């Protein structure tokens, strides 16, 4: 019986050993913990880029979707022939420079969903501290563009924010409708004056197509009624404008759009 016992033991060890070896010879990826970076006001762009690349490939887990180009646009190399992200980020939204666009798309990604991809990304502030977000932005800028992130963008040691962006983008007080459209990235999906992506209904002639109340409810509760022909983009429009805009801003925007007949 001892011989049988030994055979059973050897078999069990061989099977367990086989699986252990298989799991050890494949690429080893560890899920890192986001940690505050020791980057001061005098940090150089090069240091930010290095730190950002590490976060991008590690704790940020950005490569899960952005490295492949199947779940989200490929940020590492050229996506759809448009060039690397650092080269194209400044042209994505009219009125937003590269740095502002990247920060906004990291913290409010639902507002910048590229056509053909789902609205799957969450505000990275839920997972990463501010300094790591800025390091990622520096890294992305370095991919084909100029790095404009500086130590002044990073949060201060006291825990406050060196820039308004460190606590989220500052709340605008403007009542200029075009500025509001740009600040809130509406033109990332809606065309105006014959230009812009057709992800949402065009603002040209919108006042003639739907009522003023419908425009207002469309901003406050965008999924309540989806415009015909745009069903496939249902759920993409951010739902926070009711909290984000002041009453005056909302009414300015509604009246501006209602007047476009």
């Amino acid at each position, binding site marked *: 019986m001892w011989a049988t016992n030994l055979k059973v033991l050897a078999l069990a060890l061989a099977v*367990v050993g086989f*699986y252990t070896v298989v799991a050890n010879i494949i*690429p080893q990826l560890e899920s*890192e*913990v*986001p940690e505050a970076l020791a980057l001061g006001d005098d940090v150089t762009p090069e240091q930010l880029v290095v730190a950002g690349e590490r976060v991008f*490939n590690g704790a940020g887990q950005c*490569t899960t979707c952005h490295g492949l180009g199947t779940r989200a646009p*490929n940020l590492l190399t050229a996506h759809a022939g448009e060039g690397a992200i650092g080269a194209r980020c400044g042209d994505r939204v009219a009125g937003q420079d590269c740095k502002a666009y990247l920060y906004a798309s990291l913290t409010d990604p639902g507002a910048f969903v590229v056509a053909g991809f789902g609205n799957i990304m969450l505000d990275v502030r839920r997972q990463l501290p501010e300094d790591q977000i800025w390091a990622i932005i520096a890294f992305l800028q370095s991919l084909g563009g100029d790095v404009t992130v500086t130590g002044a963008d990073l949060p201060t040691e006291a825990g406050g924010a060196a820039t308004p962006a460190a606590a989220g983008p500052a709340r605008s007080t403007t009542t200029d409708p075009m500025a509001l459209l740009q600040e809130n990235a509406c033109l990332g999906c809606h065309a105006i004056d014959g230009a812009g992506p057709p992800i949402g209904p065009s603002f040209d002639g919108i006042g003639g197509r739907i009522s003023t109340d419908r425009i207002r409810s469309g901003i406050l509760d965008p999924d309540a009624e989806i415009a015909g022909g745009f069903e496939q983009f249902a759920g993409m429009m951010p739902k926070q404008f009711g909290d984000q805009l002041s009453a005056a801003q909302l009414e300015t925007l509604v009246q501006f759009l209602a007047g476009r007949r």
Partner: protein
Amino acid sequence: MPDVLALVQAAADTAAASGYGRFPGPGARVAVWIAAQVHLMFAAFVLGVPMFAVITELIGIVGKDTKYDKLSKEFTRLLVFAYSATALWGAVLVFFLTTLYPQFWNHMARIFGPSMWLYVGLFFVESFTLYLYYYGWERWNAGRAKWGHWGLGIMLNVWGTIVMFIANGWLTYMMSPPEGVTVAGLPEGMTTWNAIANATWIPINIHRMIANAVFGGAIVAAYAAYRFLAAKTDEERAHYDWMGYVGNFIAISTFIVLPFAGYYLGREIYEYNQQMGITMMGGFMSWLWIVQAVLIGVLFLAANYYLWLGMGRIPGAERFTPYTKWMLLVLIIGWIVWATPHTMIASREELMAMGGSHHPFLNVLGVMSAKNTAVNIMILTTFLSFLLYRRANKRPTVSWAKAGTMVQAAMFVLSTGVVIFYGIYGYFVAALVRIGFSVYQVGAVLACIIGVTVIDIALVRGAESRGAIQWGRMPERAQYALFVLAVTFTWLMGLMGFARSGIRQHWHVWEVMQDTSEFAATPALGYAANVISVCVLIFLGLVAFIFWLGGLAESAMAKSVAGPTAPIPATAGGE
């Protein structure tokens, strides 16, 4: 001894200061990991085995076949020993959590306190039901009392299932806490029940119930295999051969439906948080599914190998032998396709080395269309193996036998055709449409399995026998195939435990309570595999001890039933 006390004191001091305790050697995380995983393996065993203990007992009662009753009692004897091990490892886990992760434990106790008391209470009830069920076996073995005894078995399952559901509430809360929960506890108006009935609770409950049956079947089959190898008489060998077959049949037949429960769980994880779902399937855990495919390929091969060897003890089965090599070929091709990596997390350097986001050659085989096709055909092949095994010694006598067999063959062809058609078509449509195709593929396979089985039951009713199954005439290597199945199922359980727990990453409770200990980073698969292997070896070592105890108890009982060899005094008889 003073050194040990100093170590314990130091650990307690550290825990109080940082919220985390220190554990000598491998550290706190590994200590809790091993305690939790081994506890879970025993828990799965003691929850899975009662399911078919009551089923086999029922078959024995209805069919008046004592063979099934004996089998059921033998299952239950293993339970009595395994139950103690489950409780012991549960206690180890609680002590480790309270001393090594005190702040986390406080958080959990604050939210789930009342359910923990209920859990302990039900554990008592479950234990005593088990003792009544096992020790009352001979006392309540006939008539209405036997039905009452069977009722105890049912209650044992009910208590065990409720206990598992409660514990599942705690662990699923860690994955998918309700909106509004903070480190301080539940928000105003939210109750413990809301925390238990969270987004992934029901899918985990279903998945675990099925997995427990699979696991219990595999371990019982391994027990039977060991007893077969140790058997000294043909009668014993026949009994344990049959027991191994039943255990394996239960394990494989329930295993086939497990992926559907897995899909449901995965879908709910995506629904709760897409990022968590993507991390699980395509993030740093993407390679885990390749390892899983390797394990499941082994399971398919070992299960089919066991069936093919089993046909050697069935008169008439030799007519099917020429087909086995083709079935083996199909299984191996399917395995290779299934284990092909595709959407793997990659760095910029790796992307450039591949010349794109995917490997230029493996890209074709690794996509979901190919993998779904491969796995469905593997399931169909295994079902065909089982069907041939079942039909081996039967000569149908119904007038429509030939037509019935033709219809069965047509069902196989049609179902394979549907699977392959959608597999190929999937390459030419968008991802969202392609995902929907898996429903048609699975539907075709399930329809085939159900349809063919229904026809087969009617077709072999009253069939002539080509000869009785010669239980016990099974080569020893078949028993080793059962060991491979049991070890693989156990390892797979450890791997899936890592997947479920690991997707929380550096959170004790997802986006509510962060792990700030030195072990917060979720380890890579190699490290995880080492810990899983240690857990599996601890579990199997203890199970081997339990098996040995089972044999010891049996021989002691056999001796006591045989009684003393001296003549019984005349006064004892009364006359």
